[in-house]
């Protein structure tokens, strides 16, 4: 491999270095991945948190490279791997639109597929199209492409003794509760199905296989027209414990809030187990993780303690409602619409903000006017404070002075607040 690329890749200063490396050496990702046992994590929501939990688990077995800053495009992955010692483990989150390209280059042992729902529609196109691209990519990464799409069919034998990826393709750890993910994953040779839940179903009502109608019950789903259905799961998780592939129950308590993060932990523990880290050991290592690149952590914003939550689409909001401080505690909601957020914030109308009734919402961010109109029609009390730091101060003034203010922001609004904050 070229000397220039090695020079460019070394100490290249993160993402910029990654860009330069890829320009000079388009095969950099494949080269840097060679000899490394890696897990890719993708999906609309939970990528960064699941990857962080996975790193905690894998680190018990050895040094683990990761793109912890959320830089999940190919050059971000190159930057992350450039800085790591050769060999060893890697846990990498991958933008859902780039999964095929990255998997072809990185040849991971495990791919975790969390969920797919509407997000950045101006950029990422349609959900079903994305699921179809995942499916093609996973069928083409060296597996035999066995379809096994039939009702309840789990393709391959995930409990086989052969090491992960020994057949040439990755083992896919996939959320059995998301029909789009099941459609994508069932093109792969080996799949471990995890019952990870799905609280936003509106993007999964059309059958990805036959365009018929998916019907959901509390714990299952199936297509009324073609019989495509939720596969039997190998792994499940509830409020008390995770049940692993061998049927062993592992009680665990996370520091991170919410049911979605218990599911993320189960996905991560399953992936870790495929690389040789026992589920119990993996979960124990995840329990102390209390903050993920600023998310869930308490920071001081303009002197005010604020619990920082990231939510950037309707599915993400469904999880947030689950653990927001209850009414009448005020909440700050910060909305931007830059490229990384999606230019079109009309998704605000898919979020049931009516559930914030009984409290004051402080609307802020560059698109706070869109949010204010949405809240008016939701009949939720609100004030608009354009400056985000001033908005946090306003929520402090309106609420209980002793508790941190809950702040929910989408991507670039979150970054703006994080830059303005210091750790509490």
């Amino acid at each position: 491999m070229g000397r220039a690329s090695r020079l460019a890749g070394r100490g290249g200063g993160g993402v910029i270095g990654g860009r330069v490396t890829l320009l000079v050496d388009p095969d950099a990702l494949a080269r840097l991945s060679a000899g490394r046992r890696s897990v890719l994590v993708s999906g609309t929501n939970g990528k960064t948190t699941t990857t962080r939990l996975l790193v905690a688990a894998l680190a018990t077995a050895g040094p683990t490279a990761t793109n912890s800053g959320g830089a999940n495009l190919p050059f971000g992955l190159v930057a992350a791997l450039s800085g790591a010692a050769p060999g060893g483990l890697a846990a990498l989150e991958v933008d859902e639109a780039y999964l095929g390209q990255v998997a072809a280059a990185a040849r991971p042992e495990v791919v975790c597929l969390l969920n797919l729902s509407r997000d950045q529609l101006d950029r990422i196109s349609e959900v079903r199209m994305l699921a179809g691209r995942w499916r093609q990519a996973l069928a083409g990464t060296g597996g035999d492409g066995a379809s096994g799409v039939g009702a309840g069919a789990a393709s391959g034998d995930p409990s086989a003794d052969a090491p992960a990826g020994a057949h040439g393709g990755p083992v896919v750890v996939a959320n059995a509760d998301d029909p789009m993910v099941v459609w994508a994953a069932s093109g792969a040779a080996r799949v471990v199905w995890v019952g990870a839940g799905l609280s936003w179903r509106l993007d999964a009502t059309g059958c990805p296989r036959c365009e018929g109608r998916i019907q959901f019950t509390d714990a299952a789903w199936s297509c009324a027209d073609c019989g495509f259905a939720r596969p039997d799961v190998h792994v499940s998780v509830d409020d008390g414990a995770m049940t692993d592939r061998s049927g062993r129950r592992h009680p665990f308590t996370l520091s991170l809030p919410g049911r979605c993060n218990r599911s993320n932990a189960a996905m991560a523990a399953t992936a870790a187990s495929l690389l040789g880290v026992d589920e119990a050991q993996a979960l124990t290592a995840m329990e102390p993780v209390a903050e993920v690149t600023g998310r869930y952590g308490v920071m001081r914003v303009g002197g005010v303690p604020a619990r920082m939550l990231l939510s950037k689409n309707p599915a993400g909001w469904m999880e947030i409602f689950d653990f927001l401080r209850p009414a009448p505690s005020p909440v700050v909601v910060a909305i931007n619409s830059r490229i990384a957020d999606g230019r079109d914030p009309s998704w605000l109308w898919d979020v049931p903000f009516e559930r914030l009734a009984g409290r004051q919402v402080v609307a802020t961010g560059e698109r706070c006017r869109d949010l204010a109109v949405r809240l008016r029609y939701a009949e939720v009390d609100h004030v608009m404070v354009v400056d985000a730091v001033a908005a946090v101060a306003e929520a402090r003034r309106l609420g209980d002075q002793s508790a941190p203010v809950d702040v929910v922001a989408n991507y670039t609004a979150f970054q703006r607040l994080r830059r303005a904050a210091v750790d509490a």
Partner: protein
Amino acid sequence: MPEEGAVASPSPPSRRRGGDSAVRVVVVHPDLLGTYGDGGNGLILSRRLQWRGFAVELIEAMSDSQVPASGDVYCLGGGEDAAQHRAAAELAAGNPLGQAVDNGAAVLAVCAGFQVLGHRYPSADGQMRDGLGLIDIETRKGTGRRPVGELVVTPSSGLGLPQMTGYENHGGLTSLGPGAQPLGHVDAGIGNGGGDGREGAVVGRVIGTYMHGPVLARNPALADLILSSVVGTLDPLDDSEAESLRAERLQTVRIPGRSGRWHWRDRLTSRR
């Protein structure tokens, strides 16, 4: 309040409601046609009636239930190709929308929902499919870059509406037949994409548009035009927040010069 139908073909008389019967607002198949927050249009229409003292029944007709033909206002939104096809097939069966329109109901159809109301529309692979034929439009598959971005529209004169703002994101190009009038003319963005600067269509009480946002959140006067065509004259509401949003959007979007020539920079909207 502007006169309804000023640019449109004749339609049945206004159906002003009595005090005891609720106005029925029907959101058509939001599980199929609701990708871009367009379900908000039904909520907005309902609230604007409730705030004025009308009894309202908001019906979200999911695709596994029959769309009632007895609604007063219908909303259809945007959707992906497969969902659009399913919605068209289900609406063709029994033709509830056609019956409702014949009875004087109003319809607001956005993007994929707009296309479905016409004679024909394209599938993702370019194959033409039959629409409901409720309005005289036809949509074909676009060949260039997908129109995605802010849309600013000057409404057709006679509608009595102020400048409109929305966000478009569509692959189809729509042309109007002689039986349809445009909703307006494009100041910024692409709109119908027929090369004539037209946006949307109006036929009687049926309005189609490519504006998401949702369109009624950004354009409350359009909401009241639709409602007044069904219930008659309306009292004004406090729309200061929507006006603030409108002002910000209209100021943020670059309006091309009189030459009307497009430059890619016109699509970049963050000049804050």
